Structure formats: structure tokens, C-alpha cells
């Protein structure tokens, strides 16, 4: 049943208890986004060190379970990784949502792959795709800003 695909337990959990919520200390980059159609908002904060590693990563946001879960999952997976990882996983993620491909990045644990793949149910709900992708686009623009 498609609806169950969309509202999987992992998503409901991340939606209810989003990880890394708030403004992380000493953030170096940030970016905001907003979906005027539905009012969803997200603000990504990230602390980049000289080695292009994402030392810290957090978000503030208002929105549906999908958008909160997506932001939460993003931060959980990307925190501590470097920029090149962020770009790759971002590509992979957006590809999964758009083209129904699988997550290919091999530096992920199986658990992480399950978590991130839980968002793929959104494919069948075109009006909700933006909920799932907004945080990811925003994270990228936070990085590209500076």
C-alpha cells in the first residue's frame, strides 16, 4: 500500500523526534528555504572546517512529517562527513526521488541506506516531492554560498 510506503515508521519517528534540531554553535554557513504553496520552511546551519569537513550540521524548520524527517535524516547522515560526500549523497538522493534509482554511495552503512531509502515512497506523491527535497537543496546552497 503506497501510503504505508510514504509514512514508514522511520519517517514518522524522524518527523516526531527530529535529530539535530536548532542552531548549531559556531556555524559558518547557513541557508533558508520556503515553499510558498504550503508554507513549509527550513533553515540549515552548518559548521565547515578548513579541511572542508562538516563538523556540525543542524536545522530549524516548520512543516509536515516528510519535510521534517527529510531534514533530520539529512543531518544525521551528513554530519561529520566532508563536502565531497555531501555532494555525492545529495545527487544520489535527488536521483532516487526523481528517477527511482537506488542509493549507490558505498561509504554508507546498510542502516543508513535503509533510513535514506525510506524517503523514496514520496515518488508516488508528486505534490509531496518538494517536502522531501527542500532540505537537501537548501543544504547545498548553504555550502555554495561562501
Amino acid at each position, binding site marked *: 500500500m503506497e501510503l504505508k510506503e510514504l*509514512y514508514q515508521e522511520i519517517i*514518522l519517528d524522524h518527523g*516526531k523526534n527530529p535529530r539535530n534540531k536548532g542552531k548549531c554553535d559556531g556555524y559558518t554557513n547557513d541557508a533558508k528555504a520556503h515553499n510558498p504553496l*504550503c*508554507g513549509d520552511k527550513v533553515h540549515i546551519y552548518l559548521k565547515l572546517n578548513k579541511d572542508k569537513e562538516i563538523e556540525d550540521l543542524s536545522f530549524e524548520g516548520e*512543516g509536515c512529517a516528510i519535510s521534517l524527517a527529510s531534514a533530520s535524516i539529512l543531518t544525521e547522515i551528513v554530519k561529520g562527513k566532508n563536502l565531497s560526500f555531501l555532494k555525492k549523497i545529495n545527487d544520489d538522493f535527488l536521483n532516487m526521488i526523481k528517477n527511482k534509482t537506488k542509493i549507490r554511495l558505498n561509504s554508507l552503512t546498510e542502516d543508513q541506506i535503509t533510513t535514506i531509502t525510506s524517503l523514496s515512497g514520496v515518488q508516488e506523491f508528486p505534490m509531496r516531492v518538494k*517536502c522531501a527535497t527542500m532540505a537537501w537543496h537548501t543544504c547545498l546552497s548553504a555550502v555554495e554560498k561562501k
Partner: protein
Amino acid sequence: MNIKNIKKEFPIFKQKINGKPLVYLDSANSSQKPKTVIDKISQFYENEFSNVGRSVHTLAVKAANRFEATRDKVQKYLNAKHREEIIFTKGATEAINLVASSFGKKYINEGDEILITELEHHSNYIPWHYLRSEKGATIKFAPVNENGDVEIEDIKKLITSKTKIIAITHISNVTGAILPITKIVDLAKEKNIPVLIDGTQGAPHSHIDMQKIGCDFYAISCHKMYGPNGLGVLYMKKKWVDDLPPYQGGGGMINEVKKDDVTFAETNTKFEAGSMQTAEVVSFSESLNFIEKLGIKKIASHENEILEYGLEKLRKNNSINIIGDPKERGSVLCFTLKDIHPHDIATILDDDGVAIRAGHHCCQILHEKLGLPATARASIGVYNDKEDIDKLSEAIKNCQKIFQN
């Protein structure tokens, strides 16, 4: 025709949504169309289509006659004094833009005040915002109270010698509040201030009589009145039809066109530039036929019964927070659900065939005041019945179940 089995008149209800019968509770967004309206469009295109007002051949004459006959019908329906007071537009949005632009051009200057309310749909705010930016006018917002009503006393307080126009909604598309428009018009008349009423939600659900309301402008979207999309009606009092400058420029709205100057048609046609939505206008007369056959008062009281039933039912669910408690409510029921975002509600309800809307409903200012970025909205049309409400209520419970896991 009988309201009890009126769904039969609407082809859309034949289909299943996700395997379930369609429970359409999104009529405030746009209503479904009866078969007579849909058929009229195809019949017209198949047998009588021509552009209106431009040629003298048989098809053109037929089309022009049907087009102008609809104008007459709308005039009667609204009890307007003159047929020239009926202007066809693309929708309520264009109707309000037209007034803001034409009235604004002539009468709004720096420091002038435009009085609207916190309830307004963006369509009845942005066009005035343009005047604010371009002319240096000011917009004042009459506050919405805790119940989702706008009090006439609060409007009174905001009127000053600089108030040039009052623009208010007839029925809020969020709180459902029916505004005391007749009293507001009376108040404005004392001070000689013209009043525009955004009747987008009012017209489908109430008996509207321009002589009784007495307003200067009344904007309608036909697609919310069981009519075609892409069509609106602007009622404009004759004195303004004669007085205001035209809006868009093009064919059909001119008097004389020379290289150094242009003069415009004297009457309503000056506001109807370019080829019109002839098929839509012609078919809208069937929407009025549909409404008249049932009787707008019967429709309103039927809708009210369903609405009351819905309020009662939803109030029994402790997790539901119903938005607003206006003195009089018109066929709109906005709510939120504890810990579940309105978009998730809408998606999950849809799985049960229940179509509602979630979001800010083009009322960001109101939602900011409510402290809610979004709400869920069930809105009632003539075709809804108590069973639809029961299904809504069940679907909400399913939604809660999913989130409780």
C-alpha cells in the same frame, strides 16, 4: 432535481479515488460541475462557436446573442440595475485587479488609505499592495477577533478622511465568517466611501442582491459556483462603469483609434478587451440555471445542515482544533490535528478518497495571526451529505492511527 441525490448530476462522482468513492470537500477551492454545464460547453463548441461581437455571420450572431443573454441572466441573478454593470473577467482575481488598477489610477494618491481586513485572500490584498508601492498609499487592516470574525466597530475605528475605498471579503475562506457586509456598506455610504466586496466565497453560498447589499463592486469566480473555470464576474455600479478608465487595452474596447490618441468605449465593453471566453460565459448560464432550479436558499440551508453536522462530529474528537467560531459560518471548516501537519492529513485523507485542502489558503496574514503556518480545510458544496462528513471523520481517525504507531 432534488438535493438528496444531486450527486448524480455531477459526472465526477462516478469515479473512484484510490478504489473508494470520491468525498469531495474542496469546493471552496473550486466546485465540481454538473453535467448540464459541461455539456453546454461541448454543444456550444460543436454547433455554435464563433468569436463574439466581431462578425455579422450567423454563427457570430448566435454566439453574441447567447453571450449577451448570459449577461442579462447574471444581471437578473444579482439584481443589478443595469446590464452594463456586469463585466466578464478571467476570475475574481482579475476582477479585483481591474478595480484596484482602474479606481486606483484615478482616485488613489499618496497618503490615501485603503481599508481591508486581516481575513483577506491574497487576491484582495496584493492588488492594493501594488497601489501602496506605486502611489504611496497606505493599507489598513481591520483586525480579525478570536472567533474569526471582523467586527463592524473595528472597521468604523479605522475609517478616516483619507479612506478612499473599503475592500472586504463576503465570507472568509478560512474561518468561514460571514461578514456584516450590508452594515459595512451602510457605514461607508455615510462617509461616501466606495466598497468592494470579494464575493468569491459569498456568491456560491448565499442569496446576493446588489440592491440590498448596495456595494459598488462585487467580485465572483464562476468556477466556485458550479461553473466553468477561467471566468469571473465583476459587478460594478453604473456610476463607476461610466467614470473609471479602462483596464487592459485591445480589441473591442475602443471608440476611435488614431496614431496620436485613443478614445474608449463608453460602457462595460471598455473593461472587456480582446476575445472573450465565449464558451465559458455561455455555459455559465447553465450554472445559474442549476442554482436557480434548486434555489440558492435551499442550497445554503442544505450546506448549513451538513456544516453543522460536521462541526458537531469533529468537535467530539478531542485532538481536533476547529479554527474560528464566527457568529455566522459559511460552508468552510478549517481545522488542525494535534501533532499532525495539515499536509500529512490531506495526503492520508486522500488515500480514503476524501479530498480536502491543506495550506495557508492564500491567507498568510491570517495564518500568521493564528500562529499556524497551515491548516486543513474541509469545505462544503451542494453535493455533500452527512455520509461525506462521516467518512471525513473516519479518515481523520485513520490518520491519527498512522501517526500513533
